[in-house]
């Protein structure tokens, strides 16, 4: 890792210790050297999904203090507001204490405690019956867990295609948009070159995301005087310290970005050499309307795409490194009319519809601002290019004396992805980066190993047979389709998965659609299920759209009086709003009581300078009758006799999750952890299981990190030395380059299907939508909701984000974090409020086409005037999370989810999701706000029945004196 990124954060001369030999003799009796800890354990934080390294200081068997691990590649010693409040999460009053079996009606919160043996027996009996008859009747969906390589593998061995984690309602548009375009994406997949970039653009980032790395990076940019441009309707957090804040209208980022592309093309400010070397810009596209291969690449006999060689005057393999390809023109090859990708691209974005003047009003951004930013991008990329004196060799064996960099970097997240046009908007951002030649170059956006992978990577999703009794799937349930034949649909085109992922409704649903599962299971569409098995996802509250209806579906009964969703198993560590809807509750541990692996097979902790992974390990023993979920899942796998989970004699293969982490091999030599493999721990990446592996991780501070050689750190898509390393590590199958797919041929294949070509064609009703949305080049279209409703009645966009000190539903049970925020306001632009006759602190009805919710407003200047927003998941339901009945969260805080439709407005059967990936379109929401009457002010609505408390739940504390016991000389 570069010198600058290896240094602990906060180590500037003005941040160092005093360096005194001893404390000054003040004589005031202050003990300046108290004992801090009996031991310090290094593990991985889980106060959000960032996976920072933490030092947990234990004194007298209790957590005294948690600080950042200075050696850790993610956080370099810093720790955010959440991580520093981990003590209160570990000791939360909402922790579940024992397995529970529902005793009252679903949703009441009435349970009886049972022993683990009974709980596992109930689950095993039920799941075993499903597996023997129709395994797809188990829908297994996990939330924000970090063990998807285990949970997905378990589902695969069980034989159900109905598995996914939370990505479908989080940011699959970013993941899929990136993976189908550049073979990587933001966050786990890549990061800005914080040490070298001179111009940083940040699009739509929810503030709880990629928390410390972004903050550390922004600190570096500020210290170096780099320019920060934020594109976000809200001027909070990161956007508050940007040099330029572009308060864009929600859902128009794609239009804004393509207007930048328009300006850059018009002025010739693009990197043609880069486009030729690393992208499919030269590839010839067949142009024969009506033909069954119209819009596909022209391919040679070896199936390789062809380009037109200007010098030879003939079509040759586009992958031939020595050709001089044409980027423009019409070429006739074997009687086929073809044009290069670049020609199509230029024609589209040079259209006046993408000019700054044409988009300005819609985006809420002046045309002059768009032109200025385009000029700045061009200036930094081309006039301020940088050169690292590092020689490297590309995939074709050509030696390059230096590494050239174009120091423009970008990062984007939820604000881009949570719209029905998010996939294409994400592709547009990658297109802009690639045209400027800034992907994986010094100063640009950098891949984190194991990325880049092929665009798109393999494998394809398994489950085409819909799941057969006692038969594992042929592979993992989630994957990447490359054409209509890969969809999981039956002969009539009906979805095979309960969430309708990989159907015509959501063809590129790489993360599944967890947000549709409850409705589909309730409606029996495409079929009824037997058991819904959920892990740490608050689906009866802030993780679902249309909460009121969702709750009704969970409790709805058929004519016979049976629940329409027959059985619900739920595992969580805390008493969330979802626990009371379970029939069987499997209590999980806190993050300090468990093993975990942050795996390269899943969502690792790599740095752009090298791959890494990490573990959690139990630092404290649970004081409750709870078990780590992954250990329970492995136990169930053994009891069910799932292949891979049992030995030949039928006994359980793994003792627990720790045993699995060390000894499981997904492929020979490749296991959950890459570090210290081989019997003696002498290798990494690939090697036999090492019985001592976990101890080696613990000894190294809880993580493993490999530093790439200097000449492997950039141009990873085409860098021979890096590509060879990637193959050795199992990241890629072959050492060939990753070509960026500006034009996406898989999308065009769907279009052709919509025109009736090929074996798999969409049902008639789906064709127009597939034709429109599966455009092989990024484009912008209006978010669906605003095209279907009366926008004069609902003139405002409504958004949510999480505060930096909270993570989804978890923060409010934390005695410290909830003191910072226990009521969310609706933030309204001051001018907008004046027009509506609203004053600060007024209570308002926030109404959408789906219903209304009541909350209190706060007037601000720093928000797009046509947008209102609030902090998400502060509003809580009474009886949940160990909070008292008078808590602000359930009386004055509100949940916007109540009025976000889970169905697309005015579109019959579709869910409220991106039509390409199925990503939940949280941010398409449109609302009106109106002052409520004096009698209605002061409390939120709708209100819900209070949950009963689980048996033996401790009464909520009136006072906390945490830490008193650590103080010398004072009796706790």
């Amino acid at each position, binding site marked *: 890792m570069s010198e600058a990124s290896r240094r602990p954060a906060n180590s500037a001369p003005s941040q160092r210790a005093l360096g005194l030999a001893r404390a000054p003799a003040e004589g005031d009796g202050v003990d300046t050297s108290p004992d801090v800890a009996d031991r310090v354990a290094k593990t991985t934080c889980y106060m959000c999904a960032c996976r920072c390294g933490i030092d947990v200081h234990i004194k007298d068997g209790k957590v005294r203090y948690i600080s950042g691990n200075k050696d850790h590649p993610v956080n370099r010693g810093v*720790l955010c507001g959440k991580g520093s*409040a981990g003590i209160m999460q570990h000791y939360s009053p909402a922790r579940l204490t024992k397995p529970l079996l529902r005793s009252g009606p679903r949703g009441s919160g009435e349970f009886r405690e049972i022993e683990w043996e009974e709980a596992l027996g109930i689950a095993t009996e039920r799941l075993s019956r499903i597996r023997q008859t129709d395994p797809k009747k188990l829908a297994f969906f996990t939330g924000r867990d970090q063990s998807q390589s285990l949970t997905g593998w378990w589902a695969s061995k069980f034989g159900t295609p109905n598995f996914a984690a939370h990505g479908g309602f989080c940011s699959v548009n970013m993941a899929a948009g990136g993976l189908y375009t550049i073979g990587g994406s933001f966050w786990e997949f890549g990061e800005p070159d914080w040490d070298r970039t001179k111009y940083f653009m940040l699009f739509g980032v929810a503030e709880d995301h990629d928390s410390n790395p972004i903050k550390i990076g922004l600190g570096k940019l500020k210290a170096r005087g780099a320019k920060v441009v934020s594109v976000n309707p809200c001027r909070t957090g990161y956007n508050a310290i940007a040099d330029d804040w572009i308060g864009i209208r929600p859902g128009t980022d794609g239009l804004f970005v393509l207007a930048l592309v328009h300006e850059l093309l018009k002025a*010739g400010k693009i990197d043609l050499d880069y486009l030729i070397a690393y992208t499919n810009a030269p590839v010839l596209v067949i142009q024969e309307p009506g033909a069954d291969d119209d819009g596909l690449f022209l391919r040679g006999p070896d199936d390789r795409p062809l380009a037109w060689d200007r010098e030879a005057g003939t079509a040759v393999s586009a992958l031939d490194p020595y050709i001089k390809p044409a980027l423009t023109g019409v070429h006739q090859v074997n009687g086929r009319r073809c044009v290069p990708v670049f020609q199509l691209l*230029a024609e589209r974005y040079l259209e006046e519809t993408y000019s700054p003047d044409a988009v300005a009003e819609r985006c809420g951004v002046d045309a002059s601002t768009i032109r*200025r930013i385009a000029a*700045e991008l*061009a*200036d930094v990329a081309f006039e301020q290019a940088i050169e690292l004196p590092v020689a490297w060799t590309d995939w074709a064996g050509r030696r390059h004396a230096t590494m050239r960099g174009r120091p423009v970097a970008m990062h984007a997240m939820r604000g881009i992805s949570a719209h029905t046009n998010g996939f294409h908007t994400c592709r547009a951002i990658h297109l802009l980066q690639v045209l400027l030649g800034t992907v994986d170059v010094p100063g640009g956006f950098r891949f984190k190993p194991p990325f880049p992978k092929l665009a798109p990577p393999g494998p394809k999703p398994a489950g085409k047979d819909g799941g057969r009794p006692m038969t594992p799937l042929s592979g993992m349930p989630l994957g990447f389709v490359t054409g209509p034949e890969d969809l999981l649909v039956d002969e009539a085109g009906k979805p095979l998965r309960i969430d309708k992922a990989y159907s015509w409704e959501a063809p590129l649903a790489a993360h599944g659609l967890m947000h549709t599962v409850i409705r589909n299971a309730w409606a029996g569409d495409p079929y009824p299920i037997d058991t819904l098995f959920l892990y740490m996802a608050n689906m009866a509250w802030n993780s679902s759209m249309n909460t009121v209806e969702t709750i009704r579906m969970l409790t709805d009964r058929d004519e016979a009086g049976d629940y329409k969703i027959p059985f619900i198993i739920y595992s969580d560590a805390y008493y969330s709003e979802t626990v009371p809807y379970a029939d069987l509750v499997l209590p999980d541990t806190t993050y300090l009581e468990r093993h975990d692996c942050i795996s390269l097979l899943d969502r690792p902790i790599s740095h752009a300078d090298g791959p890494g992974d990490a573990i959690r390990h139990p630092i404290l023993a649970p004081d409750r009758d709870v078990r780590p979920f992954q250990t329970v899942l492995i136990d169930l796998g053994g009891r069910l006799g799932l292949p891979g989970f049992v030995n030949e004699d039928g006994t359980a293969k793994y003792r627990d999750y720790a045993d699995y982490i060390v000894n499981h091999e997904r492929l020979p030599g490749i296991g959950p952890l890459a570090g210290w493999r081989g019997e003696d721990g002498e290798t990494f990446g690939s090697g036999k299981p090492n019985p001592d592996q976990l101890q080696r991780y613990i000894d190294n501070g809880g993580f493993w990190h490999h530093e790439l050689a200097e000449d492997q750190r950039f141009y990873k898509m085409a860098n021979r030395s890096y590509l060879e390393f990637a193959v050795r590590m199992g990241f890629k199958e072959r050492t060939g380059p990753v070509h960026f797919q500006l034009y996406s041929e898989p999308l065009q294949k769907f279009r052709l299907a919509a025109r009736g070509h090929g074996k798999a064609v969409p049902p008639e009703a789906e064709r127009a939508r597939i034709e429109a949305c599966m455009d092989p080049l990024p484009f912008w279209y209006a978010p669906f909701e605003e095209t279907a409703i009366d926008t004069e009645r609902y003139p405002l966009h409504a958004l949510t984000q999480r505060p930096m000190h909270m993570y989804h539903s978890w923060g409010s049970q934390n005695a410290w974090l909830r003191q910072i925020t226990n009521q969310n306001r609706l933030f309204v632009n001051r001018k907008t409020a004046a027009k509506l006759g609203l004053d600060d602190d007024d209570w308002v009805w926030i109404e959408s086409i789906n219903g209304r919710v009541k909350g209190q407003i706060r007037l601000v200047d720093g928000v797009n005037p046509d947008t209102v927003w609030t902090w998400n998941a502060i509003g809580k339901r009474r009886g949940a999370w160990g909070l008292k009945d008078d808590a602000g969260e359930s009386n004055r805080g509100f949940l916007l989810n109540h009025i976000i439709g889970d169905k697309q407005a005015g579109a019959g059967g579709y869910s409220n999701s991106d039509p390409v990936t199925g990503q939940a379109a949280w941010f398409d929401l449109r609302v009106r706000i109106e002052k409520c009457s004096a009698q209605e002010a002061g409390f939120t609505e709708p209100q819900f029945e209070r949950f009963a408390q689980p048996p033996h739940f401790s009464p909520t504390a009136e006072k*906390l004196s945490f830490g008193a016991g650590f103080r010398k000389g004072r009796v706790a």
Partner: protein
Amino acid sequence: MTCLPASTERKLGLVIDLDTCVGCQACVTSCKEWNTGGHMAPLTDIDPYGGRPDGVWFNRVHSYEHVTEAGGRTVHFPRSCLHCEEPACVTVCPTGASYKRTSDGIVLVDEDKCIGCKLCSWACPYGAREFDTDVGVMKKCTLCVDRIYNDNIAPEDRVPACVAACPTSARHFGDLGDPDSAISQLVAERGGVELMPELGYKPTNRYLPPRARTENGAKAAAPALETLKAEGGFLGWVDRMLS
């Protein structure tokens, strides 16, 4: 009334960079977790899970909007004891509980002498005092006096908890009485300011103001892009570039 030292050997304090602070609350909760088990332990939380949670915090971040000629901005403002050179909270103390250390200038409270009269909190114009109603004494930022000299902590970690945690590197620590110290030089370079100097309490801590920025992004001033006019327009340019 409590007397102040005529001078202190060091003037230890914090410098907070308002240009970089994103308001993430890391300094707030890292302070809380260190200090609730530290010198003034505990930092009691009353009604922690109820309708009026009210705890002792030595450091709080306030966010507000500020309109300047260059347009509006959102400012995140961390607030803790400024360890004034002439702190009214000390001179007003009737028992000698509040005092300023001669060696390093840290303002502390001796709990054994504090009678909980709250005069100090009335005297402090910065709102830096925190009354622990459960224990009945006044508490406040100790500048992590039990970290910065602590032999049980690795030498490089002997900085206040808030400085160690800050993810954007917006917090600095050192001797502001030494003009050659790195922190004093930082203040000089960046034009660091005292809060409300007109009151005369001479705060030790400094705030670095947000850097000048304008809505037209002068920092990356770039010439306007010119449309390619030559023959064939953009595609003609591409051909010429490649030929």
